[in-house]
């Protein structure tokens, strides 16, 4: 018998595409940590993982779909939410997660984001916010704090940024939370809650972009930035989402802000059609009967 003991495996390897490691993210980037939290969250939800799908758009975070060992789609820039909408409505048994960046979700995909929230499509959006477009070299984003430097705002950002939780809340999302990548346990817990919540749930993850945002703004390493975000953030569950603006290198509010009940798109469809059509209506959802 071979005397060499079997090497133990990293416990997350079962849910990662190890044949694609190392991933493309820079040293001290927080996206990997957000993925690590997501993997832990997946293990904590009581749902068959064969039925969990991850959809990403384009950008650094857009690569998440390529690293998780689930059915996964790397789509076009800004459009993972409508793709996910099609998937979810195509087979309501699926648990569909959109994992993408701030540029993808609230800039080019902003229109899709607000309408999916309004309709309460039953998907979870995990939006990694690193305050800039990193994959293309650090351009200004709709989340870049005022005065922060980016390659396309070389004299400082002067456009008011979006607050993702406020946007999500005002458009009707049923679950909204914000954590930094370093709030590992709390972030994981929010991901679990979001995944378990029927309807449109949003988890914003504040992540350091070490190579571009940190360097350009002379904020030290990614580690320094991670520390700053974590140490200067104030946990305030249930905070009024109008007060969640992020100012450049100032304390920010994190926590779980919204957790409410609203019928999902499919619940509303079934209810309205039943009401209007009675016995003639062919209910939709549940088992995938269109094989």
């Amino acid at each position, binding site marked *: 018998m071979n005397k060499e003991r079997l090497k133990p495996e990293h416990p997350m390897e079962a849910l990662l595409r190890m*044949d694609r490691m190392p991933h493309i993210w820079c040293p001290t980037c927080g996206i990997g940590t957000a993925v690590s939290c997501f993997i832990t969250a997946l293990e904590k939800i009581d749902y068959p993982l064969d039925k969990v799908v991850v959809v990403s758009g384009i950008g650094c975070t857009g690569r998440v779909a390529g690293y998780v060992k689930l059915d996964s*789609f790397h789509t076009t820039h800004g459009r993972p939410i409508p*793709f996910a909408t099609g998937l979810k*409505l195509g*087979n309501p048994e699926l648990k569909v997660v959109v994992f993408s960046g701030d540029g993808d979700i609230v800039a080019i995909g902003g229109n899709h984001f607000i309408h999916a929230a309004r309709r309460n499509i039953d998907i979870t959006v995990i939006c990694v916010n690193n305050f800039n477009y990193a994959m293309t070299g650090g351009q200004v984003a709709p989340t870049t704090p005022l005065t922060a430097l980016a390659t396309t705002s070389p004299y400082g950002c002067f456009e008011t940024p979006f607050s993702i939780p406020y946007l999500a809340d005002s458009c009707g999302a049923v679950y909204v939370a914000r954590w930094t990548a370093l709030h590992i346990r709390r972030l994981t817990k929010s991901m679990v809650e979001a995944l378990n919540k029927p309807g449109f749930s949003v988890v914003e993850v504040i992540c350091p972009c070490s190579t571009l945002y940190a360097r350009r703004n002379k904020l030290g390493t990614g580690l320094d930035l991670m520390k700053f975000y974590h140490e200067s953030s104030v946990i305030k569950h249930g905070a009024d989402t109008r007060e969640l603006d992020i100012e450049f290198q100032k304390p920010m509010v994190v926590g779980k802000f919204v957790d409410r009940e609203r019928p999902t798109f499919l619940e509303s469809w079934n209810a309205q059609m039943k009401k209007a059509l009675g016995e003639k*209506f062919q209910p939709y959802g549940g088992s995938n009967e269109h094989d």
Partner: protein
Amino acid sequence: MKVDPKGVLTGSYFLDGDHACCEGALAAGCRFAAGYPITPSTEVVERFAERIPLVGGIFIQMEDELASSIAILGASWAGLKSMTVTSGPGFSLMMEHIGLGAMLETPCVFVNVQRGGPSTGLPTLPGQADMMQARWGSHGDYELISLCPNSPQECFDFMIDAFNLSERYRVPVMFMMDECVGHMTEKVVIPPADQIEVVPRRYTTLPPEEYLPFKPDPDLVPPMVKVGDGYRFHVTGLTHDERGYPVMSAECQETLVHRLIDKIRRNARDIWIYEEDQVDGAEVVVISYGITHRVALRAVQMAREKGLKVGMMRLIVVWPFPEERIRQLADKVKAFVMPEMNYGQVVLELERCVAGKAKVLLAPHGGGTVHKPEQIYERIMEAAK
């Protein structure tokens, strides 16, 4: 495979092309449509929205055409036959996901009820000027399939072909109607469900550990899986290998893109649908598609009454273009006439295939209405000289 009878509204109806198109989709088994209102295509999804709750499926009016065109890709991967419907300006917005659909090899149908353009153009009047856009409108290199019906009956009949071709070859199929066909009302006969054949999705028979999402069968089409069936597959719009993993290399690009193109080109003989009338011994052959074919037929009748030997070829599948047949005809006839509601799109392909062996005359029309038969007739007479 027989269709689900729930979607088949067997009987004779007086329907316009848009409504018939919707019935064709339902009969073909389409159970998911996403759309955004735009004249003159909206009636298709209006009818779908009304009919689908009675059939068991779903309709969603998305926030724009970008969203509609990718939602149908998601629904297709979830296992449903899906379609979206639009007209010129919306078709332009959908180009992004026609490319993604080609890259992800996703069966689905894009209906374009063509109107006059460019830009907002003529919302309520016909055009046939999106034909090149249907072929190459999205960036990059790929081949798709485009069909052109010329009546409400054909909108029904060929929608079934459109879905079948999309399943058979795993490509988005462009269903290129026009405002005239879309808004024209005629008799439409919908056969009993047991007389409608549909092509089932080609699912893999391999277990997850052996399955590679983009490993093609000998006909170059890779079998598919459904999301949620435990295959844990990954697909990306990036250039990818057979595993579906991105590979940024010229070699991988060559393997993938060449196959995407060959998948259609090498199977073209099985994809082409065209009709011919009196082409044997003809001096002049008129080639047309869509509504223009009906007008051209009248012109051909006029020319035949004058004793001219005029053949007629009518393209139902326009892309891929029936090159082989055109080359054969080019050796035999004196001239070709092609009427199009544009200033020369499909005719460029005709000229390429004829390669100078015969005259090629375009009978152009800017759209807004169809040709007068006389306009085509004059070109036929000119070609015969």
